Structure formats: C-alpha cells, structure tokens
C-alpha cells in the first residue's frame, strides 16, 4: 500500500540536467536481488554522488547543505527515462524524496512514482527553470510547497503554479489506496471479460 501524500513544504534540490535516466538514479549492481529494499537510499544517484574512490563528490547538489535534507527534487527534461526499474523510485523514496517537479518524466518511472506515494508534478519548462533559479538564488534556504489537494506548487517567493493531474492518480495518492485490492473487487467483471473473450479470441486463452 502506497503512503498517502497531501501537502508538503520542504527543501528542494534542482537537478537540472537533461535525460537523467533510471540507470543513473540507481545502478543495476546496487538494485539486483530480492532483499535490496531498505538499502537503496545510499546508492541513489551513485555515479554522480560518489567519486571513484567512494568518497562524496562535493560538486553534487545532494551532498551539499542544505540540500542533503531535500524532500523535493526539481528536475530537468525527461527525468527518469529508460529502464522500468522501480528501484529507481525506491532509492529516491529511501533518501527521503516525496515529490519530484519537472517538465516531463519517463512514462514508466512516472507511473512507478504513484505506486510508492511519491508525487511527480509536471509544469512548463519555463516554470521549472524559474523554480530552480529561485532555489539556487536562496542557496536552498527557500522552501517549496506542494499541495495535492489544491494542485499547486508555491515557490519560495510565494508564486503559485497550478498543475494538472489525473483525478484517479490524485485520489489514489491522497488516500494511499491499494490498487490490487481495488481491482480484485472487480474480479467478476474480469472473469466475465475472459469468458466472452475466450469465444472471440480463443487463441489467446490456454487451458488453465
């Protein structure tokens, strides 16, 4: 069951490079195995966050104060493109990220966020750039507010930006719904579909 999300005011870190893919968010060698959850936060953005000798890369924003405590990311175009690995979202969640605000996201990553109580917000690139500038100008001191009830992002200086979100996704996040239980309530419909589809497309349905 996903954690609910309603409203958050927090430190936000801009990661503005284009096409940050899910391999960059979590390297395959850190996410492989069935018992990795709970151990991924340390490895989020590993190739950017650590130098080859394993020490912190001081250049990387999430290694700097106050951004170490960021709960919001402001991201460049096409953040989360690439692989379907949900561990990318898990690693961000485990390092404390609750919302990601960008001009566009990889489709599968975007869906995976909702499954884990992380709110991805899409706003125009010009708005994203202005949010990043404000945050950088305040050296991270300015907090961002994300309000899912009102569907707004408020910049450190108080500018409100309204965002669109799929109403079903919104309701799911606000209430922390469990999608499997909800779908299983429709099991009669699923089985009725299968029965009629078995007549229409018998080559799809093998003997159970």
């Amino acid at each position: 069951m996903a954690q609910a999300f309603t409203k958050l005011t927090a430190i936000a870190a801009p990661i503005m490079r284009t096409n940050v893919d899910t391999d960059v968010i979590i390297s395959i060698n850190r996410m492989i195995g069935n018992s990795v959850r709970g151990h991924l936060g340390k490895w989020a953005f590993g190739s950017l966050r650590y130098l080859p000798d394993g020490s912190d890369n001081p250049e990387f924003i999430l290694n700097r104060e106050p951004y170490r405590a960021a709960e919001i990311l402001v991201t460049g175009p096409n953040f989360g493109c690439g692989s379907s690995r949900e561990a990318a979202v898990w690693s961000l969640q485990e390092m404390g990220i609750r919302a990601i605000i960008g001009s566009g996201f990889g489709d599968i990553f975007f869906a995976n966020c909702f499954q884990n109580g992380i709110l991805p917000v899409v706003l125009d690139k010009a708005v994203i750039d202005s949010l990043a500038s404000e945050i950088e100008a305040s050296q991270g001191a300015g907090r961002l507010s994300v309000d899912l009830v009102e569907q707004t992002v408020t910049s450190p200086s108080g500018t409100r930006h309204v965002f669109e979100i799929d109403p079903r996704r919104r309701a799911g996040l606000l209430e922390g719904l469990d999608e499997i239980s909800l779908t299983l309530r429709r099991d009669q419909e699923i089985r009725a579909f299968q029965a009629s589809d078995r007549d229409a497309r018998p080559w799809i349905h093998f003997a159970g």
Partner: protein
Amino acid sequence: MDTHGRTLLAKIWDQHVIAAVSDDTDLLHVDRHLLHDLGGSRGLIDLKSRNIPVHNPELTFATPDHAISTASARAGTIKTGWELLAALRTETSASGIRLFDLDQPGQGIVHVIGPELGLSLPGCLIVCGDSHTCTHGGLGALAFGIGSSELTHVLATQTIIQRRPKTMRVTFDGKLPFGVTAKDLILALIGHVGAAGGTGYAVEYAGSAIRDMPIEGRLTICNLSVELGAKMGLIAPDQTTFDYIRGRPYAPQGEMWERAVAAWRTLRSDSDAMFDREVTIDVATIIPQITWGTSPEHVLGVDGRIPDPADIADPARRGAIEIALDYMGLKPGAPIAGTKVDWVFIGSCTNSRLSDLRAAAEVARGRKVAPGVRAWVVPGSETVKRDAVAEGLDKIFTEAGFEWREPGCSMCLAANGETVPPGQRSVSTSNRNFIGRQGPRARTHLASPAMAVAAAISGAIADVRTMER
C-alpha cells in the same frame, strides 16, 4: 461523435477494455505476462505474502536472462544471480507458471523468446517488468514495460490500469541504402525527435521500408521505441507477420489459425485515421549510425563529427553535451570514425536474433578482431544459439577472434556482472549508452551488428560500408 477512422492502437486497446476507470484510463486485460529473473520472483513472493493466488498462471511465462552468466556452463554466475534463479524456479513451480529454464529451447532474453515461441501474437496485450517490452510490437502486439508494483498487480488480477496514450505515426518511406539496417533507421529517428520525443505516445511505424522489412528488423525498430520515450511501439501485422508466426510452438493451429489470421487482418489503422503527431523519414537519406554520447539521442551518421559545445547557443543543451563528451572522453569536432575501441558487444534484445548474427558473421567472415579488442557474441536465446551453430556462424565468429557465448542479456545492462571495465570504450548493438550502463565509467557507442563487427575488425569506429561484401 468521432467520424475519423480508427488507429491500430485504438483497435487493439478497445478489444482489451474490461472497464473504464476514468475518462481516459481503462482497466485492460493482459493476454501475456512475461517474467524474468530480476523481478519475477519478487512479484510472486509479494503476492504469496498477501495470500493472493496468481490469477492466470497459464498466461504467464518465465525465463532467466538478466542475472545469469553467459560464460560456458554459466560459470561465474554471481551469487545473487543464482539466488534469483533459484527463487524463480521455486515460485513459478509453486504457482504453476511455465519456466523456460537454462539449456532448454525457449530460454533466452524475454523479448527474443516471446516472438520465437509464438507467445507474442498480433493484437495481443503483453506486459513484462522490462522497458523493452515494446519490442513485441513488431508483431502487431500492444506491448509495454511495467514496474514492480504493476507487475504484482498483473499477477494478482491479469489486468493493468493504463491511461490511453496519444498516437504518433512514423512513416519510413523508401528502400534501405547499402549498409543501412533497421537499427540505423530507429537510431536516426531518435536523433531526429529526441529521447523524449515519444513520451506519452504509442508509436506506430509504417511506410514502405517497414512493409518490406522482415519481422526481426521490425522487432529491432519497436525495441528502441522506449529510447524515444514511447512506452509502446507497434507495426500493423501483415502476411510477413503471419508467415513468421505460423507453426511456432504456441501459435494457433488448424481452424483456429484461420480464424486468428482473419481477425489479425483487421488490425491496421484505417486510411482516414488521425494521429496526434506524424513524422516522415526518407530512408534514402540515412547512413549507418553510431552514438557519441550518453543518451541514444546523441547519434550521428558514421561520417559525422563529434559535436562541439562551442557551436551550441542554448546553455542547457551545451551543458548536456559537455557532460556527455567529458564522460565519453571524446574530442569536440573530431570525426567519430577512427575513435579507438576496446570492447565490442553483439547481443541484447535489440540485436541478438539469427538475422543479426548472420549480418555480423557476413562482415566477420575471413577477418580478424584487431589486437587489443575483446569482442563478444551473445545469442538472444537457446534456439538462436542452436540455429546459429547449425549454420556454422559460431565458427565464423570464433575463427575471427570473437568469443561465442551462452544466451542472456549480458553486457547490455551488466546485471550479471559482465561489464566493460572503467574508462574503456565499447561499440555495442544494445539499446542504451547511459552513464554506467555497461559498467561503472564504461563508454558505450550504440550501432548495428554489422557496424559493431566493423569496429571490432578495425579496432576503431569504422564505416561498415567500406567492408561489406
């Protein structure tokens, strides 16, 4: 009332709607669910912990591909790889799911075996916890990658909740020039529309170059859909598709075959169907492609020059190019051809099918891998491997100095520990040149199988057209 014709996507989509869950989002039936070793057992274990049975184990199929070694006898498989395989065996067996295990026909990269076994059919809705599931669209299936949570949902319900995507049609018209392959067409498209050009869309590939293309090329085209941001890519099924599927182990037979083909013939976009976006590419303008950077959109013709950030006005784009060039260790403005390479990888769900290996062997035959270059050929499946051996392709490769290996994903994503060493440069027939994709600090250039062999023989990025016979 919509008076336009319907797209291929709409026709397949509507056949799978169990119920609408909101204006543009539907609960869809999943016809085929493919599991692999990285995430398959986790979903089954999650479900077991909730006391929920697998809804339709007979529509679910599994194989190990990501985490096992591709060395002979699977030697050197990492401990986690064996653990994931053991868990996949235990959990699929407990749930009554067919597992295509090591050394059996049917084992292989999940996107190679689906088509090969006749599991992937036109009009089928196929999901898998892997972004390259779009590959199966080459047969006219609606196929897409899902995350772990969605995977568990599919196991529990045999359904997936999806928002209907926008539609894009990409028309590849013309005849493929000498030395140009399906891989070059799709890389050129990604260069044209960008790595986010297809985000939110399902892409239908059409045009004379697609109609003339054999199925394995169509699978390669659809495979890279996700690299232009599109979760789904598909091609209308035609006689080429039906001829490919007929007689495969899970394909319909006899009277059922005739019924299926009749239904599949209706799966095409109507002539008056409207798409949200249209792109047309003249295939005659494309030459063999090679990537230079850390996104598949960083791509050039092999006669091109590495971009110079100094020429780029937009600071964000300039910065992105600088980061990529720094990672790749490349000199701005220099010709890409002649760049020295250390590794060559021929394999992956993009380019590891029999026709890929034949094209590679055709260039390798009678030649030698350059000194200092390590070159691997990793067939996509046990069946591809056996067919290639029966044709003697393995001998051509080994005599030329390539290593001939066991089927799996291998160095495409290095999940099994098979990595390009730090700082080394690889030409790879795979699908991603991301930072660290083939191993920490590995530098990847994507290309076709023939171009990869040209690089292996030359010891540097080279134009295969000067070597093809």
